[in-house]
């Protein structure tokens, strides 16, 4: 149950423009149901190499050219997706390359190819047609030569030569378990064709490309979005849901190509963690990776050689949210190891703040001036505020602070959704983009940031060692609550009735 789209490679949000205005693309056809139907129309047409699909009107426009044709240009588009026939776009060949329609025009020995329409210097019997695709002097394989696409050469001494175009299988190899594989193989190891990731037939699946932007789930190419042992795909065979692909491995397996490993903490999702923590957050001992008791699993050390699945150490071989392990408790199959410390991936503290940092910000700093402050960078106690002030200018998330205009009036800041105004403490004096605490925030100095996605953030300032906040454990008397916190308890009786 292959889709006609299987012959196409998509570029989302892209339009293909022809720069020569005299050349006009086909008309828009609005009577199609979806992109598959467009592909069904374009596929059999020899003079259709690509088509635009309008995602809002669901219309399509057949195109007699691709991005590799002369005088064409790709353009971002909010309306269209561009589907181009794989044979014209792929830079590698499938099988013996009979379908290859790329634009390589030199032989493996570096000789320029002779145009197929020419009979000189090498005479031959081929006549270019739309069907055989013998365009210009591009390498082709009109006679099904097992050596792949070839051409007559412009060197009289060398009549013809292979072009040495790699098979798609050889063109890209697999590191580790192939999570990074972005090759163009679209067949499984048994030769079945792969189902497109953006289709839910014949097999329904959760791996929607728009939800897994980092997994490169392009078209129907083999990929590994779920930490399997190697790249795989759903198949177009209704009887077989998914199957591995037969892909060559790159060099040594021992180390992931570009992951920095850590042993005492973990960064990001912890895929590079190589420490020896071997219990879950809840203290349950982990099961050895090379054991199948009490839990049977597929993460064996030999199949995940570069994930360092040694003993029963917490690891993250499948891109989960954090390092995890199978547990020795039969009733608890897997659990995270959150007790492993996260590496300090935010900015190191640049100074200290007293109380809530209200004293900071009386005067602009320059490097010398800072040298004059107390050796620990800590301002003087509040009752003797002097000119020695902090000049931290980076929020905790390492986003640079935004400059505040130090007008004496209320401070106006525009955020993407609302206008935020407040009147700072009289002595806040917001200078340049130094971290300050104009609204007495209990969590310390903060600033607006240059990142539109992070309107404000706290600054990585350490509390002065000799300044402890007052205890909160003698509770305030009055209690005010907003209108909330109500629930209908009858619901769970209904549930019990359900039971």
């Amino acid at each position, binding site marked *: 149950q292959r889709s006609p789209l299987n012959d196409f490679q998509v570029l989302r949000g892209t339009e293909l423009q022809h720069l020569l205005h005299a050349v006009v693309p086909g008309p828009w056809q609005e009577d199609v149901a979806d992109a598959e139907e467009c592909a069904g129309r374009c596929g059999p047409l020899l003079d259709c190499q690509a088509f635009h699909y309008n995602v809002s009107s669901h219309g399509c426009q057949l195109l007699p050219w691709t991005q590799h044709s002369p005088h064409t240009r790709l353009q971002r588009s909010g309306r269209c997706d561009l589907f181009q026939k794989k044979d014209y776009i792929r830079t590698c060949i499938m099988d013996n390359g009979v379908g290859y329609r790329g634009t390589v025009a030199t032989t493996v020995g570096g000789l320029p190819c002779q145009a197929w329409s020419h009979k000189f210097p090498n005479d031959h019997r081929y006549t270019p047609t739309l069907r055989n695709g013998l365009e210009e002097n591009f390498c082709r394989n009109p006679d099904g030569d097992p050596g792949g696409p070839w051409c007559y050469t412009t060197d009289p001494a060398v009549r013809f030569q292979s072009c040495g175009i790699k098979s798609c299988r050889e063109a890209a190899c697999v590191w580790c378990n192939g999570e990074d594989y972005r090759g163009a193989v679209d067949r499984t190891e048994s030769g079945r064709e792969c189902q497109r990731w953006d289709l839910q037939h014949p097999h329904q699946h959760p791996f929607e490309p728009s939800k897994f932007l980092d997994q490169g789930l392009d078209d129907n190419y083999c990929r590994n979005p779920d930490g399997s042992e190697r790249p795989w795909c759903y198949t177009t065979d209704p009887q077989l849901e998914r199957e591995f692909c037969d892909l060559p491995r790159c060099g040594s397996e021992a180390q992931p190509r570009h992951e920095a490993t850590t042993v005492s903490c973990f960064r990001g999702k912890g895929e590079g963690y190589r420490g020896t923590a071997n219990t879950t957050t809840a203290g349950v001992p982990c099961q050895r990776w090379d054991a199948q008791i009490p839990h049977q699993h597929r993460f064996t050390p030999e199949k995940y050689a570069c994930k360092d699945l040694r003993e029963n150490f917490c690891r993250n071989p499948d891109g989960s949210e*954090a390092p995890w392990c199978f547990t020795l408790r039969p009733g608890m199959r897997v*659990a995270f190891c959150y007790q492993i410390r996260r590496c300090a991936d935010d900015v190191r503290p640049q100074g200290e703040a007293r109380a809530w940092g209200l004293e900071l910000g009386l005067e602009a700093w320059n490097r010398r001036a800072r040298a004059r402050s107390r050796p620990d960078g800590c301002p003087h106690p509040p009752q003797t505020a002097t000119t020695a002030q902090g000049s931290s200018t980076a929020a905790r998330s390492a986003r640079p602070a935004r400059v505040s205009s130090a007008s004496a009036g209320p401070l106006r800041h525009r955020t993407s959704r609302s206008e935020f105004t407040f009147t700072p403490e009289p002595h806040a004096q917001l200078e340049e983009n130094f971290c300050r605490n104009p609204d007495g925030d209990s969590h310390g100095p903060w600033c607006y940031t240059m990142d539109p996605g992070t309107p404000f953030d706290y600054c990585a300032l350490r509390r002065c060692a000799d300044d402890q906040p007052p205890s*909160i454990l003698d509770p305030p008397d009055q209690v005010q609550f907003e209108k909330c916190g109500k629930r209908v308890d009858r619901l769970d009786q209904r*549930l019990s009735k359900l039971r």
Partner: protein
Amino acid sequence: VVGGHPGNSPWTVSLRNRQGQHFCGGSLVKEQWILTARQCFSSCHMPLTGYEVWLGTLFQNPQHGEPGLQRVPVAKMVCGPSGSQLVLLKLERSVTLNQRVALICLPPEWYVVPPGTKCEIAGWGETKGTGNDTVLNVALLNVISNQECNIKHRGRVRESEMCTDGLLAPVGACEGDYGGPLACFTHNCWVLEGIIIPNRVCARSRWPAVFTRVSVFVDWIHKVMRL
């Protein structure tokens, strides 16, 4: 939740990853805002494409088209002040409040829950075989003072944290519950006093459980939602 029972907690939400799997709990503090635990996310700046919040159901794996189920994508994450172990999630759109989906109150700033107050935790996490894994479980716990808690925790419990008493039978939060609420019934309404964070041991009997004390960070929560 270990040692709990099926129950109703309309402000408790389920955080779902891109595969649609439940991985943490959360609390609905505003129509478009969820408060949860920092440990549930690998980074404060990770891409959130595909992450969703599911509300309005008691089932861990609700069927497609189940009435009342609301699935809302997560649009933004804001990490709390250092040491808060909190994250605020902004949803792509406001949820619809109804009998199955309700807001929980935030406490006043610095409010300290009196010892002895009856509270409850809720979640779809690990039950260790003590409950029904397919539905939301709720467990009742009593608050104890930090002073009492620090006796067993040897002074490690900070003022920005709070504790509940350990019971003879193992009762408490476990894997998959992190980020969920410790809700206390105060002055006629339910208040979000604590957030479930990973403890060294799940539901350890006779051992106090530690939660992040929400009242210490209420000003931050309001500030984020206001900005």
